[in-house]
Each structure stands twice: as structure tokens, then as C-alpha cells.
């Protein structure tokens, strides 16, 4: 359902007019999604989606109700508003409720690429074919996905908020598998799919697959470790899932509890949430229509700040940092534009400085073991190597680790000079990282 800004605004204003609540907010999202998936060197799943939905939040006194629908005729919109009001009225008051946010001017960043929005299934197939061809040339097997989405996103509320922007997102990733357990990985994501160099991506995965055949099982224990960009991004994502926000802080459940103002990491560690970061430009405003602030969460190794949305800001009398998720949000305000600052080293230089250690391409299936102690576990995947005398000498089987993130970030030897935007679930811009110790506790094996 192709709708322009005017039509979307008219629809949102109609919803606001239908409402008899004290305050009303409507969130509109139109989606034109497409994703091409490949495996065993061919395209096996290839899908497209057209959707448009509204999420309506109403406030009656100190009671809040939310209802959503993806049928946008007048009758359904009216019924959805009434449903939200009925939900609000049926519940006891929340004495902590204050208000929806008022309008704040939004500095719009570049979130839309016409090239991504116009990407065709044929163009995705051609890109996929580049990777499959290079994998096949070596007798390898490629699998992955190429996603090109356009969303048309708006927030309006009865206090005068109007925020609208079209957004595109493209993401390409591939696992290339050689015989005898070797595999390699590549991933890129960008607002503009035109930035992707598919040949270079294919080579990255194919070459690592070739190098990682016939892996050994190393002795388990702590190793000096070089984490490549994908692994660092997923580590930061885990920190985010543990809760870098006001709610986790207040409830004593996050990794920064009791640590604000303190040195938590090496003084070269700076973690910002920045909507204008050149790699991370994706949204200008949050799910309440509030502009996303540039926020230093860790600066020079010191824990500086956590994220807020209107509810948490009102509750604590703090500034809203523009990190609301769609209502109702049990997780807390989340930073969606995290970037770990770069350093001055190349991955090759990091490896050269290691006498005996491990190089990790990426992690797999990480999960939180203890959120306040910032401990997580997971496996390595698609290219783990033993480093001996400054060189990658032998590929190793996927390893399990159990690691405290603050422990790792306090033992930084160097940071990579180049950031890469990647995602497991949440996108993070991160450089490679060379740390003094990482605890490998298990290995993938078939069993006896």
C-alpha cells in the first residue's frame, strides 16, 4: 500500500480526531519488505511483504491502553481507538504515569536510499549469484540472505508531535562452507544497498573457508584473543540486552548498576549511541517521535550515561534521550545506534603481536549468563584460528566461551582502525579488538 507523507499524516490525524482520550498517540508503519535466501548454492526461499499498520496508545487519566491493527479503513481505525480506550479504562491507575512527550524539533539524518527501495528480485538474484559462483569455483557451498526493505514510519500525538521519515535497510550475509568443517563469513548492512561490493564480500568468506579446513581441538583455557568486528558487535549487543537503560539501572538488573561515574573499561573504550554516526544512520527519531540524542554511554572507559524514554525521564526528572521502543515496552529504552570507537590498529598488526592466542571471526548463539556481572556465553563460528608467534597457524573447531565483558574491556591491548556495522539481532558499529584474555571453556565435538 504505497502512501505518501500527506496521506500518512491525514490517516494519523484522523485517528487522533476519533479519540476521546486525554492523550492519544498513533504510530504508523508501512513496510515493503523483500528477502532472497540461498543455500546449497541456489536460491531456495524468496519472499516479499506489503504491510501497513497502526499502533494506537491512549491515555485516560493515569491509565494507558494500546491497540494495533493492519486494516486501515475508517471503521477499523475507530474500533481500534475505542479498543485502546476500553483497555485503559478497565485498569487501575498507574500513579507513576505523567504524560506522552510533546513536540521537539528533529534533526533528520539520511535514512532513505531510493536505490534500496527500488531493488528488484532479479538484482538480488544477481548479487547472490556472485557469491555462489565464487564458492562453486572452489568446490564450496554458500548460504545466506539478501534483504532490501523500505519502511514509511510516522508518529503523531495529540500534544502536537509529528515525525515522519522513509527508511531503507539492506543487509547481506553469507556463510561459505568448505569440506572438512572449514567455513567463512561475510556481512554488510547499509541504508544504501548500492554500497555493497559483492565480489569483495564473496572473497572474504571464501578465503576464510579455505583457510579454516581441517580444524584442530586446542587445549581449553584463557587465551590472548583477537576478536574481529562481527564478534565485537555481538559482544556489545549482549551488553545492550543486559540493559544500558534507566529502567535496568533503577531495578538493579543491568551491567552499569552501581557503576555510573566509575572506570568500567580501558580508557580507550568509548561507546556512543549516535543516530548521525556515518555507519549507523538508520532512524532520526524514536517510537514516540522524539529525536534520538547523541549519547556517550561509556567515554574514556568511564560509565557516563544510560538511555531514557519519556516514561523513565518523567519518572526520574531526567532528560529524555529519545530511546523509546513501541508501547508497551517491558525491556526499557534501548539504544539502537551503538558504536564502539575505533583505535589505530589493523587486524594483521594485532595478530602479529600475539605470541600464542586465538583469533575469532564471529560468535554464535550468545546468551546472558549474569546481567549485573556482565557475563555471557556463546560459541565461535566460521573461522576460529590458533595464533602462534604472530601468525594464524591452525584453524580450530568452534569453541565455547564464558566471559565477563567488563573483564575483557579492561584488558584491551588495541582497537581496530576500521568500524564495521553488523548485526546479530541489533545493529552495532564496532572495530576489531585485541584483548589480553578470553576464557574458552568448551569445544564443538561429535561426542563419544
Amino acid at each position, binding site marked *: 500500500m504505497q502512501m505518501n507523507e500527506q496521506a500518512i499524516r491525514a490517516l494519523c490525524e484522523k485517528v487522533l480526531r476519533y479519540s476521546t482520550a486525554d492523550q492519544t498517540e498513533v504510530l504508523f508503519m508501512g513496510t515493503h519488505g523483500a528477502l532472497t535466501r540461498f543455500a546449497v548454492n541456489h536460491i531456495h526461499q524468496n519472499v516479499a511483504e506489503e504491510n501497513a*499498520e497502526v499502533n494506537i496508545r491512549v491515555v485516560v487519566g493515569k491509565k494507558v491502553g494500546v491497540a494495533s491493527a493492519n486494516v486501515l479503513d475508517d471503521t477499523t481505525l475507530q474500533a481500534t481507538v475505542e479498543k485502546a480506550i476500553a483497555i485503559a479504562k478497565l485498569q487501575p491507575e498507574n500513579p507513576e504515569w505523567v504524560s506522552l512527550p510533546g513536540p521537539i524539533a528533529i534533526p533528520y539524518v539520511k535514512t532513505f536510499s531510493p536505490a534500496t527501495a527500488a531493488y528488484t528480485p532479479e538484482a538480488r538474484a544477481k548479487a547472490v549469484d556472485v557469491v555462489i559462483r565464487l564458492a562453486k569455483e572452489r568446490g564450496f557451498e554458500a548460504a545466506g540472505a539478501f534483504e532490501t526493505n523500505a519502511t514509511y514510519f510516522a508518529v503523531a500525538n495529540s500534544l502536537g508531535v509529528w515525525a515522519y521519515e522513509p527508511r531503507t535497510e539492506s543487509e547481506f550475509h553469507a556463510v561459505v562452507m568448505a569440506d572438512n568443517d572449514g567455513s567463512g563469513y561475510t556481512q554488510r548492512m547499509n541504508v544504501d544497498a548500492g554500497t555493497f561490493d559483492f565480489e569483495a564480500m564473496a572473497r572474504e568468506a571464501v578465503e576464510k573457508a579455505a583457510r579454516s579446513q581441517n580444524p584442530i581441538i586446542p587445549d581449553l583455557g584463557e587465551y590472548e584473543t583477537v576478536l574481529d568486528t562481527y564478534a565485537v558487535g555481538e559482544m556489545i549487543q549482549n551488553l545492550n540486552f543486559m540493559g544500558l537503560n534507566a529502567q535496568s539501572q533503577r531495578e538493579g538488573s543491568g551491567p552499569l548498576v552501581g557503576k555510573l561515574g566509575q572506570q568500567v573499561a580501558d580508557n580507550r573504550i568509548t561507546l556512543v549511541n549516535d543516530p548521525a554516526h556515518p555507519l549507523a544512520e538508520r532512524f532520526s527519531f524514536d517510537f514516540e517521535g522524539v529525536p534520538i540524542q547523541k549519547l556517550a554511554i561509556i567515554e574514556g572507559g568511564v560509565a557516563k550515561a544510560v538511555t531514557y524514554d519519556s516514561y523513565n525521564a518523567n519518572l526520574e526528572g531526567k532528560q529524555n534521550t529519545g530511546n523509546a521502543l513501541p508501547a508497551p515496552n517491558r525491556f526499557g529504552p534501548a539504544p539502537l545506534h551503538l558504536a564502539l570507537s575505533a583505535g589505530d590498529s589493523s587486524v594483521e598488526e594485532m595478530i602479529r603481536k600475539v605470541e600464542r592466542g586465538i583469533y575469532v571471526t564471529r560468535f554464535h548463539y550468545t546468551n546472558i549468563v549474569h546481567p549485573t556481572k556482565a557475563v555471557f556465553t556463546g560459541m565461535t563460528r566460521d573461522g576460529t584460528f590458533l595464533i602462534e608467534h604472530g601468525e594464524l597457524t591452525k584453524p580450530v573447531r568452534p569453541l565455547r566461551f564464558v566471559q565477563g565483558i567488563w573483564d575483557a574491556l579492561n584488558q584491551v591491548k588495541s582497537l581496530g582502525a576500521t568500524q564495521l556495522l553488523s548485526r546479530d539481532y541489533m545493529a552495532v558499529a564496532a572495530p576489531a579488538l585485541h584483548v589480553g584474555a578470553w576464557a574458552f571453556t568448551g569445544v564443538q565435538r561429535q561426542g563419544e
Partner: protein
Amino acid sequence: MRRRNHARFRAQGKVSVMRDILQRALAIAEQLGASYADARYMERATESIAVKNGVVDGITSGVSQGINIRVLVNDAWGFASSSIVAMPEADVIAQRAVAIAKASALSAGKPAVLSPLEKQVGKFSTPMAKDPFLVPLNEKVDLLLRADAAMRSVKGIAVTTGNIEYGRESKIFVSSEGSDVEQVLVDCGAAITAYAVDEQSGELQQRSYPNSFGRQAGATGYEIIEAMDLVGHAPKIAEEAVQLLTAKQLEPGVTTIILDGPQTAIQIHESCGHPIELDRVLGMEAGFVGKSFLTTDKLNNFTYGSEFVNIVADATTPGGLGTFGWDDEGVPAQRTNIVTNGRFTGYLMSRDTAPDLGLSSNGCVRADNWNRLPMIRMTNVSLLPGTWKLEDLIADTEDGIYLSVNRSWSIDNLRLNFQFATEVGWEIKNGKLGAMIKNPTYTGITPEFWRSCDAVCNADYWTVWGTPNCGKGEPMQTMRTGHGAAPSRFRNVRVGVSALK
């Protein structure tokens, strides 16, 4: 109640209109060269109620509906979906799906073969006693607030949460082979959690009832929640959360463990349910979550577990979250023996993967909504009951740990090396439960672990646990799966691996 749901579906005047739209989409696809096509209308309605620290944290009601079509053209697949449920849109999605299939053919694999399926016609509704949508909202809010107050009555509790969530999926499936199936599936569940915090040590502990990570849920009505007695169980879990703050840390070592029902269920989900997905085995998920150690040469030829391990995939289990009438390829719900007396005997299959093994689909394909491609998903993958009473099993255990309710999970890309943490553990010494243990973890290799299973509790201790949030596929789909499980004992397990100092 079964009749009432269908009556509502029809009263909306939808069924015949939808069927015409879907038939039109099939006809257009066939005109444009599709050798096979299937089309679906799906509407998913959900309501969720969350409370926290004595107040309502969020109540939401949502409806999402749309149509989709999957086509096979020149031996390649295409899929298109739209939220516009109207006759002209049938042409739009059919044309788009065919164009996408032609693009897929630019990078084609071997020709797709579908296992045979007789024309299916019929209706199915989730059997239930009490429709959760018809229970007054204030009654549901009140139940959660009373359970919340009961948890907060315990001194030392920092945060309390509770949630009730239920959904209704109304769907029609038609195919170019003449199948025409109408279903209304209802699911319902709830849980409460108490958190205790020691700010000095940064220790955070939690206890959930009946289960963590969402809730305990089933394909059933509100009766599942009424049977939980959330209020009655609230003080006990709150007390345990507080006690955990000062409980002892598990010492690393190798020991005997007894997993409770909920933890056995997630152990089945991660280390059996996922590696038996045949699409995953054949490499179709390799670019995302990985492959499987249960390669096709192992079928009927591999010792997955001990003689006490019998696992079935059963889409007919009463109340199971993975229970339905037909899957989303129109294949009837059925039961498959997955592990038989320890031997690996079956996969979860679709119509396009089963022929690789010379077999027919056993009906394991589902999509989480109208805008997603149906794919192989767990139904109810269950460990069949053994013979033990739990009291006898503990009495029979000289030295070990009893582990209860999952706290975290992680498993490798072949589903071999796993590590789980549970909310709580208790020492077992000389056949008796002893001291409480905090932050317990255990780790292992899947077949070694299941071969070390030497006891499963009997049917009195067996419950169908629901996993309402199983992620798979790209774009990601969140599916509802079920796992029947009873407490089970495993020998020589590595425990206590931790970076906690």
C-alpha cells in the same frame, strides 16, 4: 466452544470472500505458469496483559491479517504477501510471487519435488473450555495484581512481574491440488517472576512460576491459567529469589543432575527439536543458524540417547502449543517417532524435503503469520514418560544436583555443544534434597548427554510445556512449540563452568 469459534469466523462474513480471493490468486498463478501454488488467509489476534511492581505495565490488543501465495515456477519458489485483503490484490500477489520465482530460477538448484498429498478438505478448532478473549479483562488484570501483591509481601523482593497472553489464529489454506482447509487455533498462557537484588554484591536473582522466558502456554483456553494457581505459588518463588542471594555458588565439577520438567523441556527443544528439522539438516538454514549433527546417514542408524529416551513429534497432543489440525502445507497433524529406545528414527519434515529421504511429509510446516513463508517448525516434540516417581528418583541419587527452571541457553551451530543455566538448584546428598545453589550451569555434548540419561519420571509428573517464542528463519519468525517432559536424571555432567568470581 469449537463450534462458536467457527461461527464467529463465519459471522464476520469472511470465509467465503477470502476463499474466492485465494482461489483467484491460485488461478492467476497457474495462468502465469505455476506448476504448483498454495495460498493462505491468516488473521492473528492477540491480547497481552503485563503487571509490574503492583501496577499495570502494559495492556495491548492487536490484530494482523493478510493473504499470501507460494508458487513453484520453472522448479523455483516464489512467495508474496499483502495486508490488503481484497480481490484485486489476489492478482497483485500472484503476479509478484511468479516474478520472484522466475528470479529464483536465475540461481536454481535441483528441481523441487513435493511428496504426494491427497486432497484435504475440512475444519479444525482448538478444543477449549473457556475462551480467554471472553474472560473479562479486569478479571485477568486482577489475577495478576493479586499474584504480584503476594510476591511483594515477601521482604527483600526488588521487582515483580506477571503476564497473561493469548492469541487466536483464524486461517484458510487452499492449494492448486484442490485442498481447502479452515482452522481456528487458540493459545493461552501466563507466568509470574520475582527478582531479588543485593546492591552491595551486584547479585541479581530471579524465580519464575510456572516457567521463565515468557510464560507457560498451551493451545487451550483460559482453563490453563486457572489451573496454575498463580497467587498460591507466588510467595514461595519470592522467598526462593531472596534466599538465592545468600545461597552458595555451585562448585565446578562432574556430577549427577536431575532436571525438572521445564528445564527438561528446553533441553529437548534445543538439543533434539532443532537438530531434527530436516531443512536444517539439508543445509537450508546454514547461512543463519547452522546445520545439524543429525545428518541423513544417521537415520535409524545412530544411538541418540540411552534406552530410556523415547521422543515423539506429535501435533495431536491435547493442549500442546504445537497442536493443530493441518500444517500450513495442508498435511494432516500426526505423530512421528523421533527417538525410539535411544535410537534416532525420525525427522520433522515438509513436502519439499521429505522426498530427499524417499519419505512423505509428516506435517511439520508452519508460518507465524500471513506475511511469512511456511517452513519446518517443531510441533510438540516430547520426551515420553518413564517409570519413576520423583521422590524415588531423588532418594535413589547419592550425590547430585536438582536443577529447576531455565535462566539461559546457548548451543552451537550443529546443536552439539550446549550450556544451560537454571534459576535455582538444590544439592542432593544421600538421597535427600539439601542446600540451595545459586547461578547453577551445566554443559555437555548432545548425544553424550542423552546417552547418560538413566531415568525419566512417570506420567504423573509429565506436563506439556509451551515454548511461545521459538525463533527461526529470515525474516525471523517466532513460533509456538510444545514439549511434553517429566523430571529426568543424567549422569556424569559437567557443572558450574562460570566466569563468576
